[in-house]
């Protein structure tokens, strides 16, 4: 179906960005634009749900490009809509949270911050809704560039160093991706996302297809798979809301989204299986899951620990896609929104702890459970979900991943099942100490140790969003049809594997 809605959704942040700049002298109006754009965009994105649920695909072509068979076009299919819903719903919450966070800490350059945030969301939503690789690449690069000012927000030498590292990884990745896009076009004459893969690619030479596959994989370095992950912990110098939305949702999820798109919609499950690439990818993902968790255990800085946890969790998505089985891909697709909600809760809590108590180190968090109960309870909920325990949504996605592993050929199935379970165990190992320290340990030296700093809950602007995301993490378990998520995933799986 042709419809303007995808374009309108993308226009929301695009229009909000200049408005934010224009009203730089009126903070309340400025943030008003962001919130208004966020709500409008979410409504628009959600309104496309029923249509997509009917199995229809909403298309909008902006213009024909100079290249034959490539339009600059948007396409809303079930999988894209999942990512779009995740991003747009969380943008509203994080914007609210940002207001509280930035104002409490009296951060400088807030206009630049909100401006760049709008552009980053523009990129993310564009990636979600684009109909072909070229369109996707354009938005991918917009994400990369627009998040730089957010990463280096503090403008300290450390932040600038982090920003440079960020570019040093992601810009070459962009070059690989561009090569992948053009090479795909050159090999097949199209770059459209096609459920089940582009037919012409299957007839291309296996060597070319393999090279292309790795170019794409390097191009999607935003997914932070090892050994190309170290930009992510470094980027944690950014303000917490940025880490939350961009490094748990928009940037990294765009990366894994791209990988799933590539496997299922460019190469096609059959071709990846035929070339034997799934095993390599699964090994990379498995390695990243385990090593990411180990690194996480070693971190004392809460944001760094969360960053390594993100690295580990992102590879669940990659692993699920690499299984190439119905349940595996389903788990991967489910893990994108579910992990987003849980991880954002954790990050928002980390930010609230920073604002409320000024603490970054886990070892110093003793007693916070009493002084900041709401924050710490939300944190605990999300942490339990992260480990894949019921009653949280992380359980559902991990369950499907396990089913996916089960369907594999004999030796691999067990191996990867073990990898998933070990990784989940490690998740518990690195999250449990935080909960334990916060709730069951008395602060050393009592209240006076804080240098007169009165520990209290963060402002309401911050508490509400993090409570909502925590609540949604449970809601998704109880009622996975929230925001059509599970229905959309089923439709996407139906498109890819046939049947229902």
């Amino acid at each position: 179906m042709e419809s303007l809605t995808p374009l309108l959704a993308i226009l929301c942040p695009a229009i909000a960005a200049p408005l934010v700049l224009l009203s730089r002298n009126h903070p309340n109006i400025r943030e008003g634009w962001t919130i208004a754009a966020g709500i409008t965009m979410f409504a628009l994105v959600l309104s496309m749900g029923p249509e997509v649920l009917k199995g229809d695909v909403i298309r909008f072509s902006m213009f024909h490009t100079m290249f034959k068979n490539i339009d600059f076009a948007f396409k809303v299919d079930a999988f894209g809509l999942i990512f779009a819903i995740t991003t747009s719903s969380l943008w509203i919450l994080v914007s609210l949270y940002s207001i509280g966070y930035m104002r409490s800490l009296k951060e400088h350059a807030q206009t630049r911050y909100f401006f760049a945030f709008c552009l980053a969301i523009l990129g993310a939503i564009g990636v979600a809704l684009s109909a072909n690789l070229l369109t996707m690449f354009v938005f991918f690069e917009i994400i990369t560039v627009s998040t730089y000012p957010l990463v280096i927000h503090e403008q300290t030498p450390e932040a600038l160093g982090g920003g440079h590292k960020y570019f040093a990884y992601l810009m070459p990745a962009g070059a690989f991706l561009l090569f992948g896009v053009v090479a795909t076009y050159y090999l097949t004459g199209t770059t459209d996302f096609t459920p089940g893969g582009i037919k012409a690619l299957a007839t291309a030479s296996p060597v070319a297809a393999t090279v292309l596959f790795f170019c794409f994989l390097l191009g999607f370095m935003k997914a932070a798979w090892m050994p190309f992950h170290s930009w992510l912990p470094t980027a944690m110098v950014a303000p917490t809301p940025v880490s939350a939305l961009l490094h748990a949702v928009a940037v990294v999820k765009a990366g894994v989204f791209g990988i799933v798109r590539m496997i299922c919609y460019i190469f096609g499950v059959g071709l990846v299986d035929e070339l034997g690439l799934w095993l390599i990818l699964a090994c990379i993902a498995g390695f990243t899951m385990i090593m990411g968790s180990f690194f996480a255990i070693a971190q004392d800085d809460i944001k760094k620990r969360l960053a390594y946890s993100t690295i580990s969790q992102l590879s669940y998505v990659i692993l699920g896609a690499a299984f190439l089985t119905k349940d595996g891909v389903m788990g991967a697709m489910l893990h994108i929104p579910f992990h987003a909600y849980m991880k954002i809760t954790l990050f928002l809590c980390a930010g609230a702890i920073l604002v409320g108590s000024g603490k970054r180190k886990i070892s110093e968090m003793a007693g916070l459970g009493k002084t900041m109960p709401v924050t710490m309870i939300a944190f605990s909920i999300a942490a339990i979900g992260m480990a894949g325990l019921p009653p949280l949504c992380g359980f559902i996605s991990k369950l499907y991943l396990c089913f996916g592993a089960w369907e594999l050929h004999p030796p691999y199935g067990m191996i990867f099942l073990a990898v998933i379970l070990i990784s989940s165990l490690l998740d518990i190992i690195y999250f449990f100490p935080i909960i334990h320290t916060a709730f069951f340990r008395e602060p050393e030296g009592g209240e006076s140790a804080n240098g007169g700093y009165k520990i209290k809950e963060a402002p309401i602007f911050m508490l509400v969003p993090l409570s909502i995301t925590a609540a949604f993490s449970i809601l998704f378990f109880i009622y996975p049809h929230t925001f059509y998520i599970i229905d959309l995933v089923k439709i996407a799986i139906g498109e890819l594997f046939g049947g229902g």
Partner: protein
Amino acid sequence: MLLADQLPAIIVTVAMFFGFTILLVGYLNRRLAFWFSLIPNIAFLILSILTLRHVLTVGTIKYWQGGWRPPWGIEYVVDAMNAYLLVILFFIVVLIEIYSKRNVEKEIEARKHPTFYALVQLMVAGLAGITVTGDLFNMFVWLEIASLTAYALIAVAGGRALRASYNYVIMGSIGAVFYIFGVGWMYAATGTLNMADMRILLPVVYDSRLVQMAFAFIVVGIMIKAYIFPLHFWQPDAYTYAPSSISAMIASIHGKVMIYILIRLVYSVFTLEFIRHYIGLDLIICWVAAAGILAGSVFAIKQRNIKRMLAYSSVSQFGYILLGIGLSPLSPWGLVAVVAHILNHAVMKGCLFLAAGSFIHQEGKWDIRHFEGLSKRMPWASGAFAIAAISMIGIPPTAGFASKLFLILASLDAAQYPFVIILLLSGLLNLVYFWRVIDRMYFVRHEEPTEGGKERAGGLPISMTAPMMVLAALCIILGLFWLTDIPMPLINQILSDLSTGGRL
């Protein structure tokens, strides 16, 4: 004869005529000199747009000077390629002249103003002459007019500019001699100077040593004039010390017209058949271009002076155009890249030089290390610089991205995979040296000097800001423009006019 057929001749002669009028007017009233330069150029811009329209709708314009039929007389031939270049030429010139008014008032003493504008006008006339002519020797004449005026304009600033200009005079003259030698031998081999005529006569003598030598000499001559690596060494000094508006003009327009000579000779005189005849010649051109692309960027990384950095960046960017030429016998996308990058680079580099010029104009800052906090004090100029720099890096949706995309596609289409890697690498090198500037301007923490410590000059005059903003906006608009299929008629017309045999 229709008026449209005479447009090229009108533009060139009247432009030339105004070169002298400005001098006369300038003696009467110095202020008038600027207006006598700007207004005719705006008129020429309109005329050149009409020319382009005529060429695209009706067909190639041919004008015989004095009614003498070619090959005896001098013929002006305007097809899609040079009509397109003519529009770019006058468009950029008009913008830079608007910018230059206040800049020149500050950088150059008042008594020199009439001569300055007269020289600019003559240079523009020379460039327009090169663009429209269909005669090899006439092209040399215009080339010398454009070059001599450029030497003088670079020297206007005095001081170190004199030495830079002197270097340029020597190198430029050597280049001109190479060119005229080549033309001389071609004449000896074919007995004609008219391009269209020569094209017909040339295939018989493809294997003659004379023609081979002529080709080599002409290419070397143009390489010097268009500062293509490794013959670029006169250029960084010239760009650095010339008045800002002249740097901008030479970087965005002068070099383009020089490389147009190469394009015209390769496609319309020697033709791609000649290139294909000597197997490997196209690849030699490609590799020279590739070396330039990388070397220019590497040199640029080392620079601290913003204008010098931009100068080396131009060396690199001209490699892009040359690479497009080298790839065009193998893929039609090569020529598309050339066509697109001529415009894109003119816009991007023009914008960068104007912004750099305004930093120098306003704050006297040319050293990148002193750029901290510039974005606060000069938001518009910094913004223009940032957009153009992002475009140079080739991030979508900007003009530079389109150029890069076409070139990569051309390399793949031609099965010349190493160039894909070189192009992608070059984008990253651009990132290194441009992002360093953006970082300084926007992101490095900077303590504002206390109020009153330094007198704050009033903002940049609108006449300087506006042209920059137009160019910066164009960086993005063109990026989208080249992605759409709107320019397809133009490109197909250029492809068929240059008879590459390819169509998209």
